[in-house]
Protein backbone atom coordinates (compact mmCIF):
# COMPACT_ATOMS: atom_id res chain seq x y z
CA UNK A 1 0.00 0.00 0.00
CA UNK A 2 1.35 3.41 -0.88
CA UNK A 3 -1.83 5.45 -1.16
CA UNK A 4 -2.52 8.25 1.32
CA UNK A 5 0.49 7.56 3.53
CA UNK A 6 0.44 9.47 6.79
CA UNK A 7 3.28 11.41 8.41
CA UNK A 8 4.04 14.44 10.63
CA UNK A 9 5.95 17.62 9.93
CA UNK A 10 8.49 17.46 12.74
CA UNK A 11 7.94 18.76 16.23
CA UNK A 12 5.61 17.45 18.90
CA UNK A 13 4.81 19.14 22.22
CA UNK A 14 7.08 18.36 25.12
CA UNK A 15 5.45 16.55 28.03
CA UNK A 16 5.20 18.49 31.27
CA UNK A 17 8.08 16.58 32.94
CA UNK A 18 10.41 17.53 30.08
CA UNK A 19 9.42 21.21 30.03
CA UNK A 20 10.09 21.41 33.77
CA UNK A 21 13.41 19.61 33.35
CA UNK A 22 14.51 22.00 30.58
CA UNK A 23 13.78 24.99 32.83
CA UNK A 24 15.81 23.40 35.62
CA UNK A 25 18.67 22.55 33.24
CA UNK A 26 18.77 26.13 31.93
CA UNK A 27 19.30 27.32 35.51
CA UNK A 28 22.05 24.74 36.03
CA UNK A 29 19.92 22.71 38.47
CA UNK A 30 19.86 19.56 36.31
CA UNK A 31 22.77 17.81 34.63
CA UNK A 32 23.00 17.33 30.87
CA UNK A 33 22.87 13.56 31.36
CA UNK A 34 19.70 13.74 33.43
CA UNK A 35 18.07 16.00 30.84
CA UNK A 36 19.14 13.69 28.02
CA UNK A 37 17.51 10.73 29.82
CA UNK A 38 14.20 12.59 29.92
CA UNK A 39 14.50 13.68 26.28
CA UNK A 40 15.04 10.02 25.37
CA UNK A 41 12.03 8.98 27.42
CA UNK A 42 9.82 11.56 25.66
CA UNK A 43 11.16 10.54 22.23
CA UNK A 44 10.40 6.87 22.96
CA UNK A 45 6.88 7.81 24.07
CA UNK A 46 6.21 9.72 20.87
CA UNK A 47 7.60 6.91 18.68
CA UNK A 48 5.34 4.45 20.49
CA UNK A 49 2.34 6.75 20.09
CA UNK A 50 2.90 7.13 16.35
CA UNK A 51 3.19 3.35 15.96
CA UNK A 52 0.06 2.78 18.03
CA UNK A 53 -2.12 5.03 15.92
CA UNK A 54 -0.73 3.54 12.71
CA UNK A 55 1.34 6.43 11.31
CA UNK A 56 3.34 5.37 8.24
CA UNK A 57 6.37 7.67 8.24
CA UNK A 58 7.53 8.75 11.69
CA UNK A 59 9.40 11.73 13.15
CA UNK A 60 11.46 11.85 16.34
CA UNK A 61 9.30 14.72 17.66
CA UNK A 62 12.26 17.09 18.30
CA UNK A 63 12.03 16.73 22.08
CA UNK A 64 15.67 17.83 22.38
CA UNK A 65 15.30 21.08 20.44
CA UNK A 66 14.36 24.55 21.58
CA UNK A 67 14.25 26.75 18.49
CA UNK A 68 14.88 24.97 15.17
CA UNK A 69 17.50 27.44 13.91
CA UNK A 70 19.22 27.87 17.28
CA UNK A 71 19.55 24.09 17.75
CA UNK A 72 21.44 23.74 14.47
CA UNK A 73 23.54 26.87 15.05
CA UNK A 74 24.62 25.63 18.48
CA UNK A 75 26.25 22.72 16.69
CA UNK A 76 27.98 24.75 13.99
CA UNK A 77 31.34 26.46 14.55
CA UNK A 78 31.50 30.13 13.63
CA UNK A 79 28.26 30.99 15.37
CA UNK A 80 27.32 32.47 18.72
CA UNK A 81 23.86 32.61 20.22
CA UNK A 82 22.48 36.09 20.90
CA UNK A 83 20.34 37.34 23.74
CA UNK A 84 16.57 37.20 23.51
CA UNK A 85 14.85 38.75 20.50
CA UNK A 86 11.11 39.19 20.15
CA UNK A 87 9.26 37.14 17.56
CA UNK A 88 5.80 38.55 18.27
CA UNK A 89 3.62 39.39 21.25
CA UNK A 90 5.28 37.88 24.31
CA UNK A 91 7.33 35.28 22.41
CA UNK A 92 11.12 35.54 22.31
CA UNK A 93 13.93 33.41 20.95
CA UNK A 94 17.70 33.43 20.94
CA UNK A 95 18.98 34.20 17.51
CA UNK A 96 22.21 32.78 16.08
CA UNK A 97 24.97 35.25 15.17
CA UNK A 98 27.42 34.30 12.42
CA UNK A 99 30.77 35.59 13.72
CA UNK A 100 33.22 33.58 11.61
CA UNK A 101 33.42 31.14 8.74
CA UNK A 102 30.88 28.37 9.29
CA UNK A 103 32.22 24.86 9.96
CA UNK A 104 30.52 21.66 10.95
CA UNK A 105 31.73 20.34 14.29
CA UNK A 106 30.30 16.94 13.48
CA UNK A 107 26.88 15.52 12.72
CA UNK A 108 24.11 17.59 14.32
CA UNK A 109 20.92 15.54 14.34
CA UNK A 110 22.25 12.11 13.32
CA UNK A 111 22.56 10.81 16.86
CA UNK A 112 18.89 11.54 17.61
CA UNK A 113 17.85 10.11 14.25
CA UNK A 114 19.64 6.85 15.09
CA UNK A 115 18.10 6.75 18.54
CA UNK A 116 14.59 7.17 17.15
CA UNK A 117 15.06 4.81 14.19
CA UNK A 118 16.35 2.07 16.50
CA UNK A 119 13.03 2.15 18.34
CA UNK A 120 10.85 1.33 15.32
CA UNK A 121 10.70 -0.73 12.16
CA UNK A 122 8.90 2.08 10.36
CA UNK A 123 10.88 4.81 8.56
CA UNK A 124 11.81 7.89 10.62
CA UNK A 125 12.49 11.13 8.75
CA UNK A 126 15.84 12.89 9.00
CA UNK A 127 15.16 16.56 9.72
CA UNK A 128 17.29 19.52 8.65
CA UNK A 129 16.66 23.22 9.22
CA UNK A 130 17.16 24.58 5.71
CA UNK A 131 20.03 26.87 4.64
CA UNK A 132 17.83 29.80 3.66
CA UNK A 133 15.99 29.75 6.98
CA UNK A 134 19.28 29.38 8.90
CA UNK A 135 20.59 32.47 7.10
CA UNK A 136 17.40 34.53 7.37
CA UNK A 137 17.02 33.76 11.07
CA UNK A 138 20.64 34.60 11.96
CA UNK A 139 22.47 37.87 12.43
CA UNK A 140 25.47 38.01 10.09
CA UNK A 141 28.65 39.66 11.30
CA UNK A 142 30.94 37.72 8.98
CA UNK A 143 29.80 37.14 5.39
CA UNK A 144 28.20 40.50 4.68
CA UNK A 145 26.08 38.94 1.93
CA UNK A 146 22.87 36.98 2.38
CA UNK A 147 23.73 34.75 -0.57
CA UNK A 148 27.20 33.90 0.77
CA UNK A 149 25.88 33.10 4.25
CA UNK A 150 23.04 31.00 2.82
CA UNK A 151 25.34 28.96 0.58
CA UNK A 152 27.83 28.48 3.42
CA UNK A 153 25.04 26.94 5.50
CA UNK A 154 23.97 24.87 2.47
CA UNK A 155 27.41 23.22 2.17
CA UNK A 156 27.38 22.17 5.82
CA UNK A 157 23.81 20.98 5.71
CA UNK A 158 24.65 18.83 2.69
CA UNK A 159 27.18 17.02 4.88
CA UNK A 160 24.47 16.59 7.49
CA UNK A 161 22.05 15.20 4.88
CA UNK A 162 24.67 12.73 3.64
CA UNK A 163 25.37 11.66 7.25
CA UNK A 164 21.65 11.13 7.87
CA UNK A 165 21.39 9.01 4.76
CA UNK A 166 24.44 6.99 5.77
CA UNK A 167 22.80 6.41 9.15
CA UNK A 168 19.83 4.87 7.39
CA UNK A 169 17.40 7.74 6.75
CA UNK A 170 15.09 6.84 3.86
CA UNK A 171 13.52 10.30 3.93
CA UNK A 172 15.35 13.59 4.50
CA UNK A 173 13.25 16.69 5.11
CA UNK A 174 14.54 20.25 4.70
CA UNK A 175 12.52 22.78 6.69
CA UNK A 176 12.27 26.22 5.10
CA UNK A 177 9.64 28.23 6.97
CA UNK A 178 11.42 31.43 5.84
CA UNK A 179 10.92 30.51 2.17
CA UNK A 180 8.34 33.20 1.51
CA UNK A 181 10.14 36.04 3.30
CA UNK A 182 11.61 37.70 0.21
CA UNK A 183 10.26 36.66 -3.16
CA UNK A 184 13.25 38.10 -4.99
CA UNK A 185 15.47 35.61 -3.16
CA UNK A 186 13.61 32.47 -4.26
CA UNK A 187 16.30 31.64 -6.86
CA UNK A 188 18.84 31.72 -4.01
CA UNK A 189 16.70 29.34 -1.97
CA UNK A 190 16.41 26.92 -4.90
CA UNK A 191 20.18 27.03 -5.41
CA UNK A 192 20.87 26.44 -1.71
CA UNK A 193 18.42 23.54 -1.37
CA UNK A 194 20.00 22.04 -4.48
CA UNK A 195 23.36 22.07 -2.71
CA UNK A 196 21.83 20.33 0.34
CA UNK A 197 20.00 17.56 -1.57
CA UNK A 198 22.53 16.92 -4.34
CA UNK A 199 23.28 13.23 -4.91
CA UNK A 200 21.00 11.93 -2.15
CA UNK A 201 19.34 8.58 -2.72
CA UNK A 202 16.85 9.18 0.09
CA UNK A 203 13.49 10.70 -0.66
CA UNK A 204 13.80 14.47 -0.17
CA UNK A 205 11.07 16.68 1.24
CA UNK A 206 10.82 20.45 1.56
CA UNK A 207 8.50 21.79 4.22
CA UNK A 208 7.29 25.37 4.32
CA UNK A 209 4.41 27.15 5.97
CA UNK A 210 2.53 30.42 6.44
CA UNK A 211 3.50 32.25 3.32
CA UNK A 212 1.69 33.78 0.43
CA UNK A 213 1.70 30.65 -1.70
CA UNK A 214 0.28 32.38 -4.74
CA UNK A 215 3.42 34.49 -4.97
CA UNK A 216 5.74 31.48 -4.74
CA UNK A 217 3.63 29.03 -6.72
CA UNK A 218 5.71 29.17 -9.87
CA UNK A 219 8.71 27.96 -7.85
CA UNK A 220 7.04 24.80 -6.54
CA UNK A 221 8.10 22.65 -9.48
CA UNK A 222 11.58 24.17 -9.46
CA UNK A 223 12.36 23.11 -5.89
CA UNK A 224 14.94 20.31 -6.08
CA UNK A 225 13.09 17.81 -3.86
CA UNK A 226 10.80 14.80 -4.40
CA UNK A 227 8.05 15.99 -2.11
CA UNK A 228 6.62 19.33 -1.12
CA UNK A 229 5.10 19.59 2.34
CA UNK A 230 2.57 22.41 2.55
CA UNK A 231 0.27 23.85 5.15
CA UNK A 232 -3.13 23.63 3.45
CA UNK A 233 -5.90 23.76 6.05
CA UNK A 234 -4.89 27.06 7.68
CA UNK A 235 -5.03 28.74 4.28
CA UNK A 236 -8.51 27.36 3.66
CA UNK A 237 -7.49 25.00 0.85
CA UNK A 238 -7.35 28.08 -1.40
CA UNK A 239 -4.59 26.67 -3.53
CA UNK A 240 -6.42 23.67 -4.89
CA UNK A 241 -7.82 25.50 -7.91
CA UNK A 242 -4.40 26.71 -8.85
CA UNK A 243 -2.97 23.17 -8.59
CA UNK A 244 -5.75 22.06 -10.90
CA UNK A 245 -4.63 24.53 -13.54
CA UNK A 246 -0.89 24.14 -12.94
CA UNK A 247 -0.19 20.54 -11.85
CA UNK A 248 2.50 19.75 -9.31
CA UNK A 249 5.11 17.38 -10.69
CA UNK A 250 6.08 16.05 -7.27
CA UNK A 251 4.53 14.32 -4.32
CA UNK A 252 2.64 16.56 -1.96
CA UNK A 253 2.39 16.22 1.79
CA UNK A 254 -0.92 17.91 2.37
CA UNK A 255 -1.60 19.58 5.72
CA UNK A 256 -5.07 18.65 6.92
CA UNK A 257 -5.08 19.85 10.52
CA UNK A 258 -4.44 23.41 11.74
CA UNK A 259 -1.59 23.44 14.24
CA UNK A 260 -2.49 26.88 15.59
CA UNK A 261 -5.99 25.96 16.70
CA UNK A 262 -6.88 24.30 20.00
CA UNK A 263 -9.81 22.59 18.28
CA UNK A 264 -9.27 18.90 17.57
CA UNK A 265 -10.69 18.59 14.07
CA UNK A 266 -13.23 15.75 13.86
CA UNK A 267 -12.42 12.82 11.60
CA UNK A 268 -15.28 13.74 9.24
CA UNK A 269 -13.84 17.21 8.59
CA UNK A 270 -10.36 15.83 7.92
CA UNK A 271 -11.87 13.19 5.64
CA UNK A 272 -13.60 15.97 3.69
CA UNK A 273 -10.25 17.73 3.24
CA UNK A 274 -8.62 14.51 2.06
CA UNK A 275 -11.39 13.92 -0.48
CA UNK A 276 -10.95 17.49 -1.78
CA UNK A 277 -7.23 16.86 -2.18
CA UNK A 278 -7.97 13.60 -3.99
CA UNK A 279 -9.84 15.52 -6.67
CA UNK A 280 -6.48 17.06 -7.67
CA UNK A 281 -3.70 14.68 -6.62
CA UNK A 282 -3.12 10.99 -7.32
CA UNK A 283 -3.43 8.96 -4.09
CA UNK A 284 0.07 7.52 -4.48
CA UNK A 285 1.50 11.05 -4.60
CA UNK A 286 -0.66 12.42 -1.79
CA UNK A 287 0.71 12.19 1.75
CA UNK A 288 -1.49 13.23 4.65
CA UNK A 289 -0.01 15.26 7.53
CA UNK A 290 -0.64 18.25 9.83
CA UNK A 291 -0.01 21.80 8.55
CA UNK A 292 3.18 22.22 10.54
CA UNK A 293 4.99 21.05 13.67
CA UNK A 294 2.66 20.54 16.60
CA UNK A 295 4.95 21.80 19.37
CA UNK A 296 2.76 24.76 20.30
CA UNK A 297 -0.22 22.50 21.11
CA UNK A 298 -0.74 20.53 24.33
CA UNK A 299 0.16 16.85 24.25
CA UNK A 300 -3.55 15.96 24.38
CA UNK A 301 -4.44 18.30 21.50
CA UNK A 302 -1.57 17.06 19.35
CA UNK A 303 -2.42 13.43 19.99
CA UNK A 304 -6.13 14.02 19.32
CA UNK A 305 -5.37 15.74 16.01
CA UNK A 306 -2.94 13.02 14.88
CA UNK A 307 -5.27 10.19 15.90
CA UNK A 308 -8.19 11.67 13.93
CA UNK A 309 -5.93 12.38 10.98
CA UNK A 310 -4.66 8.80 10.72
CA UNK A 311 -8.20 7.44 11.16
CA UNK A 312 -9.53 9.73 8.43
CA UNK A 313 -6.80 8.59 6.02
CA UNK A 314 -7.53 4.96 6.88
CA UNK A 315 -11.26 5.50 6.26
CA UNK A 316 -10.54 7.18 2.93
CA UNK A 317 -8.30 4.29 1.85
CA UNK A 318 -11.00 1.80 2.77
CA UNK A 319 -13.72 3.74 0.97
CA UNK A 320 -11.63 3.84 -2.20
CA UNK A 321 -10.58 0.19 -1.92
CA UNK A 322 -6.87 0.92 -1.48
CA UNK A 323 -6.28 -1.29 1.54
Amino acid sequence: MNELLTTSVGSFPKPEYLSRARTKASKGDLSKEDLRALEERATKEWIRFQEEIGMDVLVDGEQYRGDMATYFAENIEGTEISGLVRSYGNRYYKKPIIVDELRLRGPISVDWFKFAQAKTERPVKGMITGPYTMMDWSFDEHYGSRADACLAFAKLLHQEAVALEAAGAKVVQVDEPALSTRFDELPLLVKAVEVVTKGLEAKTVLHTCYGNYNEIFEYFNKLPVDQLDLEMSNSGLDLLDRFKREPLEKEIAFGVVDVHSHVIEPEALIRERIEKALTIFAPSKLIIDPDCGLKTRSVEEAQGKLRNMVEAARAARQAHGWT
Partner: protein
Amino acid sequence: MVRTTVVGTYPRIGDRPEEQTLRRGIARLDKGEIAEADLRALEQEVVQTVLREQNDAGIDLVTDGQISWYDSQSRFAGKLASIEINGLVRYFDTNTYYRQPVVRGPVAWTEPVLLDEWKFAQSHSRAPVKAVLTGPVTLASLALDKHYRTKEALALDLATALADEVGALVRAGASHVQIDEPILTRHPEDVSLVVEALERIRSRKGKASLTLFTYFGSVAGIYTDLLDGPADVLGLDLVQGAATWSALARHGSKKPLVFGLIDARNTKEEDPAAIAKQLLSLKGSVDLNASYLSPSNGLDFLPRDRARRKLRILRDAAKKAGVGG
Protein backbone atom coordinates in the same frame (compact mmCIF):
# COMPACT_ATOMS: atom_id res chain seq x y z
CA MET B 1 26.78 69.06 16.08
CA VAL B 2 24.43 66.60 14.43
CA ARG B 3 21.82 65.40 16.90
CA THR B 4 20.78 61.84 17.66
CA THR B 5 17.40 60.12 17.76
CA VAL B 6 15.87 56.65 17.62
CA VAL B 7 13.11 55.43 15.33
CA GLY B 8 10.58 53.94 17.72
CA THR B 9 10.72 50.46 19.27
CA TYR B 10 13.23 49.34 21.88
CA PRO B 11 13.74 45.75 23.17
CA ARG B 12 11.21 45.16 25.95
CA ILE B 13 13.25 42.58 27.80
CA GLY B 14 16.91 41.81 28.34
CA ASP B 15 18.72 38.61 29.30
CA ARG B 16 19.08 39.26 33.02
CA PRO B 17 16.15 38.02 35.14
CA GLU B 18 15.50 41.55 36.44
CA GLU B 19 15.11 42.71 32.81
CA GLN B 20 12.31 40.19 32.18
CA THR B 21 9.59 41.53 34.43
CA LEU B 22 7.32 42.41 31.52
CA ARG B 23 7.59 38.96 29.93
CA ARG B 24 6.72 37.32 33.23
CA GLY B 25 3.96 39.85 33.86
CA ILE B 26 2.22 39.19 30.54
CA ALA B 27 2.40 35.43 31.20
CA ARG B 28 0.88 35.99 34.64
CA LEU B 29 -1.86 38.21 33.22
CA ASP B 30 -2.71 35.46 30.71
CA LYS B 31 -3.08 33.03 33.60
CA GLY B 32 -5.27 35.48 35.48
CA GLU B 33 -2.72 35.90 38.29
CA ILE B 34 -2.44 39.69 37.95
CA ALA B 35 -4.78 42.44 36.75
CA GLU B 36 -4.45 44.77 33.74
CA ALA B 37 -3.51 47.62 36.09
CA ASP B 38 -0.61 45.56 37.46
CA LEU B 39 0.65 44.98 33.94
CA ARG B 40 0.41 48.73 33.17
CA ALA B 41 2.60 49.39 36.19
CA LEU B 42 5.17 46.88 34.94
CA GLU B 43 5.12 48.48 31.49
CA GLN B 44 5.74 51.86 33.07
CA GLU B 45 8.76 50.51 34.92
CA VAL B 46 10.17 49.24 31.61
CA VAL B 47 9.44 52.57 29.91
CA GLN B 48 11.46 54.32 32.64
CA THR B 49 14.35 51.92 32.08
CA VAL B 50 14.21 52.42 28.31
CA LEU B 51 14.21 56.21 28.75
CA ARG B 52 17.10 55.99 31.21
CA GLU B 53 19.14 53.90 28.78
CA GLN B 54 18.54 56.44 26.00
CA ASN B 55 19.18 59.40 28.32
CA ASP B 56 22.39 57.77 29.60
CA ALA B 57 23.57 57.25 26.03
CA GLY B 58 22.97 60.96 25.42
CA ILE B 59 20.29 60.53 22.75
CA ASP B 60 18.83 63.95 21.99
CA LEU B 61 15.33 62.96 20.91
CA VAL B 62 14.00 59.77 22.49
CA THR B 63 10.90 57.54 22.34
CA ASP B 64 9.09 55.47 24.96
CA GLY B 65 10.28 52.36 23.10
CA GLN B 66 6.66 51.53 22.18
CA ILE B 67 6.72 49.14 25.12
CA SER B 68 2.95 48.71 25.28
CA TRP B 69 2.65 47.92 21.56
CA TYR B 70 1.82 44.31 20.73
CA ASP B 71 2.89 45.26 17.21
CA SER B 72 3.08 48.22 14.85
CA GLN B 73 -0.38 47.69 13.33
CA SER B 74 -2.85 46.61 15.99
CA ARG B 75 -1.87 49.00 18.81
CA PHE B 76 -3.49 52.12 17.37
CA ALA B 77 -5.86 50.64 14.78
CA GLY B 78 -7.36 48.26 17.36
CA LYS B 79 -8.71 51.23 19.34
CA LEU B 80 -10.57 52.80 16.42
CA ALA B 81 -14.28 52.30 15.75
CA SER B 82 -15.13 49.48 13.28
CA ILE B 83 -11.75 47.73 13.51
CA GLU B 84 -11.28 44.23 14.95
CA ILE B 85 -7.96 42.49 15.41
CA ASN B 86 -7.42 39.15 13.73
CA GLY B 87 -4.67 36.48 13.38
CA LEU B 88 -0.93 36.74 12.82
CA VAL B 89 0.61 37.87 9.55
CA ARG B 90 4.32 38.21 8.70
CA TYR B 91 5.54 41.80 9.06
CA PHE B 92 7.38 42.83 5.88
CA ASP B 93 10.50 40.69 5.39
CA THR B 94 11.14 40.28 9.11
CA ASN B 95 10.82 37.15 11.21
CA THR B 96 8.15 38.93 13.26
CA TYR B 97 4.39 38.92 13.02
CA TYR B 98 1.57 41.40 13.56
CA ARG B 99 -2.06 40.87 14.41
CA GLN B 100 -4.00 41.98 11.37
CA PRO B 101 -6.61 44.73 11.77
CA VAL B 102 -9.88 43.88 10.01
CA VAL B 103 -11.93 46.88 8.89
CA ARG B 104 -15.67 46.19 9.25
CA GLY B 105 -17.12 49.67 8.81
CA PRO B 106 -16.18 53.37 8.70
CA VAL B 107 -13.13 53.87 10.93
CA ALA B 108 -13.22 56.69 13.46
CA TRP B 109 -11.14 57.99 16.33
CA THR B 110 -13.13 58.08 19.56
CA GLU B 111 -10.57 58.97 22.24
CA PRO B 112 -6.80 59.38 22.65
CA VAL B 113 -4.96 56.07 22.37
CA LEU B 114 -1.36 56.90 23.19
CA LEU B 115 -1.72 60.23 24.98
CA ASP B 116 -1.35 58.99 28.57
CA GLU B 117 1.66 56.92 27.63
CA TRP B 118 3.34 59.87 25.94
CA LYS B 119 2.65 62.08 28.98
CA PHE B 120 4.08 59.45 31.31
CA ALA B 121 7.22 59.06 29.18
CA GLN B 122 7.78 62.81 28.85
CA SER B 123 7.46 63.26 32.60
CA HIS B 124 10.28 60.72 33.08
CA SER B 125 12.71 61.92 30.43
CA ARG B 126 15.29 64.68 30.37
CA ALA B 127 15.20 64.68 26.55
CA PRO B 128 12.06 65.47 24.55
CA VAL B 129 9.98 62.36 23.77
CA LYS B 130 8.95 61.93 20.17
CA ALA B 131 5.40 60.63 19.62
CA VAL B 132 5.56 57.87 16.98
CA LEU B 133 2.57 56.58 15.01
CA THR B 134 2.29 54.09 12.17
CA GLY B 135 1.17 55.96 9.08
CA PRO B 136 -2.27 55.67 7.47
CA VAL B 137 -1.12 54.17 4.16
CA THR B 138 0.92 51.43 5.86
CA LEU B 139 -1.99 50.71 8.22
CA ALA B 140 -4.43 50.57 5.29
CA SER B 141 -2.11 48.36 3.22
CA LEU B 142 -1.52 45.76 5.94
CA ALA B 143 -5.13 45.63 7.16
CA LEU B 144 -7.86 43.38 5.82
CA ASP B 145 -10.48 45.73 4.40
CA LYS B 146 -14.04 44.43 4.44
CA HIS B 147 -15.74 47.80 4.12
CA TYR B 148 -14.04 50.43 1.96
CA ARG B 149 -13.78 49.71 -1.71
CA THR B 150 -10.36 51.23 -2.11
CA LYS B 151 -7.17 51.50 -0.14
CA GLU B 152 -7.25 55.25 -0.77
CA ALA B 153 -10.60 55.73 1.00
CA LEU B 154 -9.48 53.66 3.99
CA ALA B 155 -6.09 55.40 4.18
CA LEU B 156 -7.66 58.86 4.17
CA ASP B 157 -10.12 57.97 6.96
CA LEU B 158 -7.22 56.51 8.93
CA ALA B 159 -5.33 59.76 8.30
CA THR B 160 -8.24 61.71 9.81
CA ALA B 161 -8.16 59.42 12.86
CA LEU B 162 -4.39 59.86 13.18
CA ALA B 163 -4.79 63.63 12.83
CA ASP B 164 -7.18 63.58 15.82
CA GLU B 165 -4.59 61.64 17.83
CA VAL B 166 -1.80 64.02 16.78
CA GLY B 167 -4.00 66.99 17.76
CA ALA B 168 -4.42 65.53 21.26
CA LEU B 169 -0.69 64.81 21.60
CA VAL B 170 0.32 68.28 20.47
CA ARG B 171 -2.19 69.97 22.82
CA ALA B 172 -0.56 68.02 25.65
CA GLY B 173 2.83 69.42 24.67
CA ALA B 174 4.38 66.97 22.20
CA SER B 175 6.90 68.93 20.15
CA HIS B 176 7.96 66.09 17.82
CA VAL B 177 5.60 63.75 15.99
CA GLN B 178 6.77 60.98 13.67
CA ILE B 179 4.63 59.12 11.13
CA ASP B 180 6.08 55.82 9.87
CA GLU B 181 5.32 54.72 6.31
CA PRO B 182 7.53 51.67 5.62
CA ILE B 183 5.08 50.62 2.90
CA LEU B 184 6.70 53.23 0.63
CA THR B 185 9.77 51.02 0.34
CA ARG B 186 7.54 48.34 -1.21
CA HIS B 187 4.98 50.49 -3.00
CA PRO B 188 6.61 53.76 -4.06
CA GLU B 189 3.58 54.41 -6.28
CA ASP B 190 1.68 55.18 -3.06
CA VAL B 191 3.71 58.35 -2.53
CA SER B 192 0.94 60.73 -3.67
CA LEU B 193 -1.51 59.01 -1.30
CA VAL B 194 1.00 59.34 1.54
CA VAL B 195 1.39 63.04 0.73
CA GLU B 196 -2.40 63.59 0.66
CA ALA B 197 -2.85 61.71 3.94
CA LEU B 198 0.01 63.56 5.57
CA GLU B 199 -1.59 66.91 4.67
CA ARG B 200 -4.52 65.93 6.92
CA ILE B 201 -2.18 65.12 9.77
CA ARG B 202 -0.15 68.27 9.19
CA SER B 203 -3.27 70.41 9.61
CA ARG B 204 -3.50 69.28 13.26
CA LYS B 205 0.15 69.35 14.26
CA GLY B 206 0.32 72.98 15.39
CA LYS B 207 3.89 74.03 16.08
CA ALA B 208 5.22 70.51 16.48
CA SER B 209 7.81 69.17 14.09
CA LEU B 210 6.40 66.45 11.82
CA THR B 211 8.74 63.69 10.65
CA LEU B 212 7.90 61.14 7.94
CA PHE B 213 10.02 57.98 8.34
CA THR B 214 10.38 55.15 5.80
CA TYR B 215 12.30 51.93 6.51
CA PHE B 216 12.99 48.34 5.35
CA GLY B 217 14.24 49.47 1.97
CA SER B 218 15.06 52.20 -0.50
CA VAL B 219 12.94 55.18 -1.53
CA ALA B 220 15.44 56.43 -4.13
CA GLY B 221 12.79 56.62 -6.86
CA ILE B 222 10.49 58.90 -4.87
CA TYR B 223 13.08 60.80 -2.85
CA THR B 224 12.35 64.17 -4.45
CA ASP B 225 8.58 63.66 -4.06
CA LEU B 226 9.14 63.09 -0.36
CA LEU B 227 11.25 66.26 -0.14
CA ASP B 228 8.39 68.21 -1.70
CA GLY B 229 5.83 66.62 0.65
CA PRO B 230 4.27 68.09 3.79
CA ALA B 231 6.66 66.62 6.41
CA ASP B 232 9.05 69.01 8.17
CA VAL B 233 11.70 66.30 8.55
CA LEU B 234 12.35 63.21 6.42
CA GLY B 235 13.64 59.99 8.02
CA LEU B 236 15.47 57.45 5.87
CA ASP B 237 16.68 53.87 6.34
CA LEU B 238 20.12 54.08 4.75
CA VAL B 239 21.14 50.50 5.60
CA GLN B 240 18.54 48.24 4.01
CA GLY B 241 17.72 51.28 1.90
CA ALA B 242 21.36 52.07 1.08
CA ALA B 243 20.30 52.70 -2.50
CA THR B 244 18.60 55.93 -1.36
CA TRP B 245 22.03 57.38 -0.61
CA SER B 246 22.86 58.20 -4.24
CA ALA B 247 19.59 60.18 -4.64
CA LEU B 248 20.37 61.96 -1.39
CA ALA B 249 23.93 62.79 -2.46
CA ARG B 250 22.69 64.04 -5.84
CA HIS B 251 19.79 66.20 -4.68
CA GLY B 252 20.77 67.16 -1.15
CA SER B 253 17.87 68.34 0.99
CA LYS B 254 16.31 71.61 2.07
CA LYS B 255 14.58 69.73 4.87
CA PRO B 256 16.36 68.38 7.88
CA LEU B 257 16.86 64.63 7.56
CA VAL B 258 17.09 61.68 9.93
CA PHE B 259 19.96 59.53 8.69
CA GLY B 260 19.23 55.90 9.57
CA LEU B 261 22.82 54.77 9.17
CA ILE B 262 23.17 52.40 12.14
CA ASP B 263 21.93 48.91 11.24
CA ALA B 264 19.07 48.05 13.59
CA ARG B 265 18.55 44.60 12.08
CA ASN B 266 22.04 43.22 12.54
CA THR B 267 24.30 42.91 15.56
CA LYS B 268 27.42 43.79 13.57
CA GLU B 269 28.90 46.97 15.00
CA GLU B 270 29.62 49.98 12.84
CA ASP B 271 32.77 52.09 13.05
CA PRO B 272 31.63 55.49 14.38
CA ALA B 273 34.41 57.25 12.44
CA ALA B 274 33.22 55.74 9.14
CA ILE B 275 29.64 56.79 9.86
CA ALA B 276 30.79 60.30 10.73
CA LYS B 277 32.79 60.51 7.52
CA GLN B 278 29.81 59.41 5.43
CA LEU B 279 27.65 62.01 7.11
CA LEU B 280 30.17 64.80 6.62
CA SER B 281 30.29 64.10 2.90
CA LEU B 282 26.86 65.79 2.78
CA LYS B 283 28.07 69.00 4.40
CA GLY B 284 26.85 71.88 2.27
CA SER B 285 23.97 69.97 0.65
CA VAL B 286 22.04 69.13 3.84
CA ASP B 287 21.74 71.18 7.03
CA LEU B 288 23.48 68.68 9.28
CA ASN B 289 23.04 70.79 12.40
CA ALA B 290 19.26 70.56 12.02
CA SER B 291 19.38 66.87 11.12
CA TYR B 292 19.63 63.67 13.18
CA LEU B 293 21.59 60.46 13.10
CA SER B 294 19.58 57.33 14.00
CA PRO B 295 19.30 53.56 13.71
CA SER B 296 17.81 52.33 10.43
CA ASN B 297 14.52 51.30 12.09
CA GLY B 298 13.20 50.37 15.53
CA LEU B 299 15.69 48.58 17.81
CA ASP B 300 13.27 45.79 18.80
CA PHE B 301 14.92 43.41 16.30
CA LEU B 302 18.06 43.29 18.45
CA PRO B 303 18.74 41.80 21.88
CA ARG B 304 18.69 44.50 24.58
CA ASP B 305 22.47 44.45 25.21
CA ARG B 306 23.15 44.90 21.48
CA ALA B 307 20.60 47.73 21.25
CA ARG B 308 22.51 49.50 24.05
CA ARG B 309 25.74 49.12 22.11
CA LYS B 310 24.12 50.53 18.98
CA LEU B 311 23.04 53.60 20.98
CA ARG B 312 26.65 54.16 22.02
CA ILE B 313 27.83 53.83 18.40
CA LEU B 314 25.17 56.36 17.44
CA ARG B 315 26.37 58.84 20.05
CA ASP B 316 30.05 58.32 19.21
CA ALA B 317 29.45 58.76 15.48
CA ALA B 318 27.50 61.98 16.09
CA LYS B 319 30.31 63.29 18.32
CA LYS B 320 32.92 62.50 15.72
CA ALA B 321 30.86 64.22 13.02
CA GLY B 322 30.73 67.26 15.29
CA VAL B 323 29.48 69.56 12.53
CA GLY B 324 28.90 73.18 13.37
CA GLY B 325 30.00 72.66 17.00
